């Protein structure tokens, strides 16, 4: 350990950040305590069981599908000579730039009874009514699971692929020397080694799914978030809403703990990333199926929705729309950059504290700071108001008390609240990514600089950070893209005259008028692409 017990400032900052990040959650939990039980029992007797069942099924389905999409893709790209591997490598990350609610809308439009696909089929086969044929209904739990998985699987893909690429090739060689077949060495060595990455990414996917509101609402699938919204906005019972949100948190906590338990005691670090790993040569059939699989994901998760958007934009967009988008786009971009930067810096602080500090509670800040990811955006926004409102009041009271003009709501009424909410919400992503990166650094490197007489901080800058460069970039990128897409928190917390791309699109979607926002939607996607392209360049050079 290169940070001793004496490094109190690191400890202080870690705890400070972690506590700041969970303070809204604590406020939420406290709020749930003064909840009258009768509404809860009414819900329990009527709709809640089905909501909970839907939530669980959705979580499991999305996890399963994301696994089936992400892991094979990661294997194909990192371990085989699949055609166009270099392009697919980054193409497979693109669906991440697509907001799920947008894909939900576009695919409903496409596959609904009134959509072009079914219209075409009816015209071809001369069917008259829905009773004449079977067509899958996209506005179902299954439809929601597929759409969410199509845009979330890149998490699994990216983290798993990175894990495969950073594996120690000597282990694989050794296994082959010891008589394992190629297949055996993959299942016995490579896959287990990638398990932490797969587990972390699946946890992220599940958390995101459970907190989703816009997509499930669009698909008319009632989940726990529906219940939270109903109790709060319908029944006006914020206490009960908080209580339900706490139940949701328990689910998440369960997932997180289960994930950590499942891979407790596993430790592996590599100092020899296998950049030049021997790739498996695929047979022709394997090539064909592998390619179809990868291109299907790219097509369904990205190219098709983008094409639909472009068609809409061509039909509907005009010059004034474009001008209006510049200010809106700038707002989105600003918020996303701040959030990504702050979340990444905090994640670095916490993850390195966890790794390098000697204090016994060193893992706690890292663990607790990620919980915000599980809270639906609107509930989080409410928690922000509940947290910063009183603080603002205190500031104003003090200012007035000493004779200054009251400064107004400088915390809860400004972009500060939005950015804070984003950092709370997306810290889990940054933490997970950077922690996964750190766990790949051999422990011996923690000790080496100390033995050479180099001080702690310089050692981190010269040893750990360079090794973490790609993890840091991935973390920043993921938070940036998520922040570009995030909606409910901005809707509620924004200051006057403040519009972002996502709020604008949401407004139009809820009116079935996405056509007029197609240009903005394309912008969200393009902004989401920038970091992916940048990241890809970085890797190549």
């Amino acid at each position, binding site marked *: 350990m290169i940070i001793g017990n004496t490094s109190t400032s690191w400890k202080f900052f870690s705890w400070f950040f972690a506590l700041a990040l969970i303070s809204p959650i604590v406020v939420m939990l406290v709020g749930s305590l003064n909840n009258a039980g009768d509404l809860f029992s009414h819900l329990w007797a009527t709709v809640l069981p*089905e909501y909970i069942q839907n939530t669980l099924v959705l979580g499991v389905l999305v996890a399963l599908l994301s696994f089936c999409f992400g892991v094979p893709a990661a294997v194909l790209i990192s371990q085989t000579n699949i055609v166009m591997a270099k392009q697919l490598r980054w193409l497979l990350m693109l669906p991440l730039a697509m907001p799920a609610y947008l894909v939900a809308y576009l695919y409903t439009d496409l596959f609904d009874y009134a959509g072009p696909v079914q219209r075409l089929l009816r015209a071809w086969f001369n069917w008259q009514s829905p009773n004449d044929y079977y067509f899958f209904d996209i506005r179902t739990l299954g439809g929601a699971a597929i759409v969410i998985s199509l845009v979330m699987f890149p998490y699994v893909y990216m983290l798993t692929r990175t894990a495969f690429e950073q594996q120690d090739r000597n282990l694989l060689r050794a296994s082959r020397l010891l008589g394992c077949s190629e297949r055996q060495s993959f299942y016995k060595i490579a896959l287990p080694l990638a398990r932490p990455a797969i587990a972390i990414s699946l946890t992220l996917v599940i958390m995101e799914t459970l907190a989703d509101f816009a997509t499930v609402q669009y698909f008319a699938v009632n989940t726990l978030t529906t219940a939270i919204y109903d109790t709060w906005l319908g*029944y006006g019972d914020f206490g009960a809403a908080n209580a339900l949100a706490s139940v949701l948190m328990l689910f998440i906590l369960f997932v997180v703990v289960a994930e950590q338990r499942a891979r407790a005691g596993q430790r592996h670090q590599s100092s020899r990333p296998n950049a030049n790993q021997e790739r498996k040569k695929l047979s022709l059939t394997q090539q064909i199926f592998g390619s179809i699989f990868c291109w299907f994901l790219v097509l369904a998760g990205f190219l098709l929705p983008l094409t639909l958007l472009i068609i809409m934009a061509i039909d509907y967009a005009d010059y004034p729309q474009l001008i209006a988008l510049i200010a809106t786009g700038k707002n989105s971009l600003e918020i996303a950059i701040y959030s990504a930067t702050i979340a990444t810096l905090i994640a670095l602080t916490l993850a390195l504290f966890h790794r390098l500090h000697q204090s016994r509670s060193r893992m706690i800040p890292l663990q607790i700071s990620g919980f915000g990811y599980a809270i639906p955006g609107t509930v989080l926004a409410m928690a922000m*108001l509940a947290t910063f409102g009183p603080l603002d009041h205190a500031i104003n009271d003090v200012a007035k008390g000493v004779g200054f003009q009251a400064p107004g709501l400088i915390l809860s*009424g400004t972009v500060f609240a939005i950015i804070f909410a984003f950092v709370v919400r997306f810290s889990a992503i940054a933490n997970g990514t950077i922690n996964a990166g750190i766990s790949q650094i051999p422990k011996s490197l923690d000790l080496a600089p100390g033995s050479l007489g180099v001080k702690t*901080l310089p050692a981190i800058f010269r040893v750990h950070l360079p090794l973490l460069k790609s993890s840091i970039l991935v973390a920043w990128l993921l938070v940036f893209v998520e922040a570009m897409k995030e909606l409910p928190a901005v809707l509620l917390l924004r200051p006057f*005259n403040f519009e972002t791309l996502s709020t604008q699109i949401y407004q139009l979607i809820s009116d079935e008028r996405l056509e007029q926002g197609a240009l903005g939607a394309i912008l969200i996607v393009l902004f989401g692409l920038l970091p992916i392209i940048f990241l890809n360049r970085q890797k190549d050079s």
Partner: protein
Amino acid sequence: MLNKILFSSFVLVAVLTTSINVFANDDVNVYSYRQPFLVEPLFNEFTKETGIKVNVVFAKKGMAERLEREGEYSPADILLTTDISRLIELKDKHLLQAVQSPELTAAIPAQYKAADNTWYALTTRVRNIYSAKRLGKVDFNYEDLADEKYRGKICTRSGKHPYNVALVSAMIAEHGEAETLTWLEKVKANLARKPQGSDRAQVQAIHQNLCDISLGNSYYFGNMLNDDKQKVWADAVYINFPNQKNRGAHVNISGMAMAKYAPNKANALALMNFLVSKPAQKMYAETNMEYPVRPGVQPSKLVASWGEFKADTLSLETIAKHRKAALILLDKAQFDL
């Protein structure tokens, strides 16, 4: 590297603090549930006339909580809502103040404002029944939606949407809770599909033969007729004003109120007076195809062409009062499941 980080944090803090807007006194601040395209033309006109700048936050959810948390330091002056229940929610939480002016009194009929002057309606909208033209002309009552002959023929958006909740509340006021629950269960049994999408999406479904009847607010009809893509949907249906032979069609309002701690009270009152003025009423009603509340101001030609109708005179505050009961019934009937 450390210096770089420190430097960037400074820049960050600096930028964050500059983004805090300090609003001048010649502004008025609006929290709006109404959409930008509806109110922006009005605000531009207001600014042109008075020189008062209008700052707006648009939101669909949680405005009352935000206002409540902000308390006495809230910058909000005026609140615009799309539904009576939101106004009552704000009033019940003591977030509004009573406002009176000769202009308001002259413009708004008593049934469209709060008895204590805490809120005023701006426009009214009918909860219509849309029916496929292939059914021919039918005289609908809301009660008919429960009729077995419409099994599998009805489409609607979520029962929990404020517009439907208000309708259910009105049904409770008329028939009582038990009967309304039976009605809801029967309507539920008649649905062609699980409640989903918006009011417009239901008309689209009728156009596509998926169902024959739907519930929808009046202005969507006009807005669809004016939309290149959606015109064919609207052309497939009749807009019906229900219960014309008895109590009249259920009517909801969009409205305005002044925040309790409005920092720019004079400007806020000026805006309220402006919004009930004849030209503004005309403009507001026309932009979104609604009915102006001010007597003597005509709705748009298109809206007028749907004919005169009888509106239910049930008081808006009664509707709002049954809101919670309506939600409980919707859950009991498992309407959205």
